[in-house]
């Protein structure tokens, strides 16, 4: 059970003996106004159990009515992934007992999903990896459990549990890949790139806000290892709760290292569900599939089969927005950057941010510089995604403008950014409030320059003797006394005027 006890093989070493096969099951909560089978609102963060009704509470006698907008959104996702859209599809009941599923079954799809057989190409390190999509189907979300009084937040050891049914019945699209062999050492990055690309697609379609931290995009990661050259794949584990792009990559990496250690010692991999732990980047054993429930799927008799009209599907296909891959090609040309740079931007989740920053007035170069430089570093330090930083593309564009206008310099800009991230307002407001603007030839600056000259007669002597570069030390002193607010070239010119009299 304890993940710390797992023995691990070094990642590079894993690849000398084993080949990974990955697979991803991604759940996307749709952003429809109402739930999948009732009229309740779907807004995130409401008081517990306020968005409920007899239908989503599974009250006796209540019946589901399928949400047409959710079906349309699912078909759009299927089309964007190049899937074939079924002309006959049914919902099915997945039967199991758990208090967060009010009806004692989850209404899902089984052998007749809406969309099948698509693919998604992702680029990692300049190579293209094709991820085959097995199916895209529509189901309903479960309620949310809160286990109170235990150490782990899990049901075991808890004193009591509370259930919030606001989430129960929110439409959920599940996108299931076929197993992806052949990624080798890039498997963790391919997994991450796949989820990143999928998120971009769903975002472009406008059918979900795909916010991993709010759970509107959730990933289960399947991993198996087989000895190099073996045709048969190994037993896979399914890691749940992988709730950030970074975690997808870490989960694959960890499982590869853990499984290799088990196999090295002659053990066998148990087909099981594992939990991912964000804090340690490790996985731990959940319930074993070998003792798993028989879901007793059967067609949902309370709903009629879906038979999407071919003309309607063609209309939806024609109306699809520009998809991320096409957009990248276009932006790459517009911005004049290399394919590698573009992949880099996309995999960092920065493409949309840069595009919006450019739209807000920044040059593509400046926008890239900030998002991939300072901001990427900060996101990395905070262990979060770029898009989740508390700064908007418009604010970054404003920062760029302030630098270009000479109101602030790069050093001050970083301080301004600190203020913005701390919630002190837009860049201009932070500049104003903290007095961070570059000083003109103000009295304060003149005084600082004269004080520096007066305080360093030896330096002045050297300069006058011809060692002009010794002035650099005085520039540094002025910058220090003005706490970086002065413009260095201006300071240098002022010093030269006074010392050399030019």
């Amino acid at each position, binding site marked *: 059970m304890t993940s710390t006890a797992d023995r691990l093989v070094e990642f590079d070493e894993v690849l000398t003996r084993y080949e990974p096969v990955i697979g991803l099951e991604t759940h996307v909560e749709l952003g429809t106004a109402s739930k999948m089978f009732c009229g309740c609102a779907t807004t995130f963060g409401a008081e517990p159990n306020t968005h409920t009704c*007899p239908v989503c*509470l*599974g*009250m*006796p*006698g*209540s*019946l*589901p*009515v*399928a949400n047409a907008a959710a079906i349309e959104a699912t078909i759009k996702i299927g089309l964007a992934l190049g899937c074939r859209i079924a002309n006959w599809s049914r919902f099915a*009941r997945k*039967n199991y*007992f758990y*208090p967060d599923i*009010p*009806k*004692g*079954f989850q209404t899902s799809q089984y052998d007749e999903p809406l969309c099948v057989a698509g693919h998604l190409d992702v680029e990692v390190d300049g190579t293209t990896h094709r991820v085959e999509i097995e199916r895209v189907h529509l189901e309903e979300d479960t309620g949310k459990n809160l286990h109170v009084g235990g150490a782990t937040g899990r*049901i075991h050891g808890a004193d009591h*549990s509370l*259930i919030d049914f606001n989430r129960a019945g929110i439409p959920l699209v599940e996108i299931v890949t076929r197993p992806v062999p052949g990624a080798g050492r890039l498997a963790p990055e391919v997994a991450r790139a796949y989820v990143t690309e999928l998120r971009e697609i769903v975002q472009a379609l406008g059918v979900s806000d795909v916010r991993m931290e709010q759970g509107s995009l959730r990933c289960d990661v399947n991993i198996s290892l087989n000895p190099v050259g073996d045709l048969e794949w190994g037993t896979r584990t399914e890691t749940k709760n992988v709730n950030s792009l970074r975690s997808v990559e870490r989960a694959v990496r960890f499982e590869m290292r853990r499984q290799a250690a088990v196999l090295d010692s002659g053990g066998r991999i148990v087909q099981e569900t594992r939990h991912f732990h964000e804090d340690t980047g490790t996985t731990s054993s959940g319930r074993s599939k070998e003792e798993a429930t*028989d*879901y*007793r*799927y*059967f067609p949902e*008799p*309370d*709903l*009629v089969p879906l038979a999407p009209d071919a003309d309607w599907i063609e209309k939806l296909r024609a109306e699809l927005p520009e998809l991320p891959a096409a957009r990248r090609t276009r932006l790459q040309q517009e911005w004049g950057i290399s394919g590698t740079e573009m992949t880099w931007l996309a995999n960092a989740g920065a493409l949309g941010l840069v595009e919006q920053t450019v739209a807000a007035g920044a040059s593509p170069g400046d926008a890239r510089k900030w998002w991939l430089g300072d901001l990427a570093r900060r996101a990395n330090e905070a262990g979060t995604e770029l898009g989740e930083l508390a700064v908007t593309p418009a604010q970054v564009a404003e920062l760029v403008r302030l630098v270009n206008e000479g109101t602030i310099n790069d050093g001050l800009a970083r301080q301004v950014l600190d203020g913005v991230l701390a919630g002190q307002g837009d860049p201009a407001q932070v500049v104003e409030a903290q007095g961070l603007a570059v000083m003109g030839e103000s009295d304060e600056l003149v005084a600082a320059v004269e004080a520096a000259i007066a305080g360093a007669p030896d330096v002045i002597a050297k300069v006058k003797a011809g060692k002009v570069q010794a002035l650099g030390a005085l520039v540094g002193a002025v910058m220090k006394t003005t706490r970086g607010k002065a413009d260095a070239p201006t300071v240098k010119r002022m010093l030269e005027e006074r010392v050399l009299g030019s």
Partner: protein
Amino acid sequence: MTGTSSDLTRVDVAGLSRLLSSGEVSAVEVTRAHLDRIAADDGRLGAYLHVEDDAALAAAAAVDQARATGAELGPLAGVPVALKDLVVTEGVPTTSGSKILEGWRPPYSATVATRLAEAGTVLLGKTNMDEFAMGSSTENSAYQVTRNPWDTDRIPGGSSGGSSAAVAGHLAPWSIGTDTGGSIRQPAAVTGLVGHKPTYGSVSRYGLIAFSSSLDQAGPMARTVLDAAVMHEVIGGHDPRDSTSIDTPLARLADAAREGAAGDLRGVRVGVVRELGGEGHTDGYEPGVLVRTREAIEVLASLGAEVTEVSCPSFDLALPAYYLIAPSEASSNLARYEGVRFGLRAGDDGSRDLDEVMAITREQGFGPEVKRRIILGTYALSSGYYDAYYGQAQKVRTLITRDFGAAFADVDVLVSPTTPTVAFPIGTRVDDPIAMYAADLCTLPASLAGLPAISVPSGLSDGLPVGLQVMAPALADERCYRVAAALEAAQDAARGHRLLDELGTPAGAA
């Protein structure tokens, strides 16, 4: 006033509607008459699980007040009604005959209940039933035994046995029943009532506690064909809350009943189903039932109907198919009763975990027949068995539907006995589920094919009522009403009174 009160309970709905509309009687008088009758007789019959009493009188008073202010009221305003206890009613106890829902007061109402309320009818109470509608005698109720007003040692049929006993016993002028495999038609037949199972999808299932979702339908149980048709018109029609509800206008059912009562069936082709009590298929059928059935068919012929015999070989497979499909769906429909959100919670003493509390709740909350069917259905749906059981049963369903299709190419309606026997004595089949299931032999085919079917009285055998079943193609419910009304009118005329009039007023009630 006692005499008037008891008289009002013997008036059919058409009569009550006239009396109320003309102002000859008030809604309060009609309601009080029925409440008095319930107070006097229900101890003996056990038809009701819950009586609305004051709430019913208040609703009736509201109707009277509205009428007094000159408001435009519908023809049914002030007519009392009883609902089978699986019709969800806001604020009114609804148990589906099960301990697991004891004390549950629903936060919403079924479409059927809402439509009846909007028509101005007054809810008298909720009627007893086999637990979750699983049974043919109402002996599977977790609460009480219900007795047949014709012979209180006998069953009133089931699962809508509380509804049949209430209407036959004059404790309600009409009631709502539900039919999954025969649960409206069989109790109607054994108590001398008219009961109609509508085309699947023509009456909303929203708010009916589900037994088997692909089979359940609510329908009228009444003393006359016309009353049944009128109730069907009130509750029927498209409901956007039920995805399986059919979006077509209802046929004119009351008109069809009136047309049938005029007695002319010329041009109507009637098929007698050989496999349901015909030659070579009489095992398990009481001779008296077969005689009444034959006579009823002769009456139809005498009214001009062309009668032929029709063979539907797949009907022999209906019983096993039904007992796979219905329990399979039930095993899933009944999964929500686990003590977390409503109803009974047992064993939650702080020492037990969730799975144990769920198990104890279900162990204590469900009766033996319900458990039997949950286990059967769970097994039939299990991985590895699905194709052999549930899948195969669905294929049988297709075959039965095809048999109906072939038959309806040549005839307009099909007829058979409603159930093979008259009401059997209480306690005689409780230990023999297979014998109990045989009560549904004739009603199952129309259920599996989703077709409309009515049971109409065809006379008595050994002093107990026998019913004739009339089946029609999907959405041709009006044919059931027309043919049933013709038989009813002809037999009432020949007899000089209604069959139910032979059921005397019980001693001490008047």
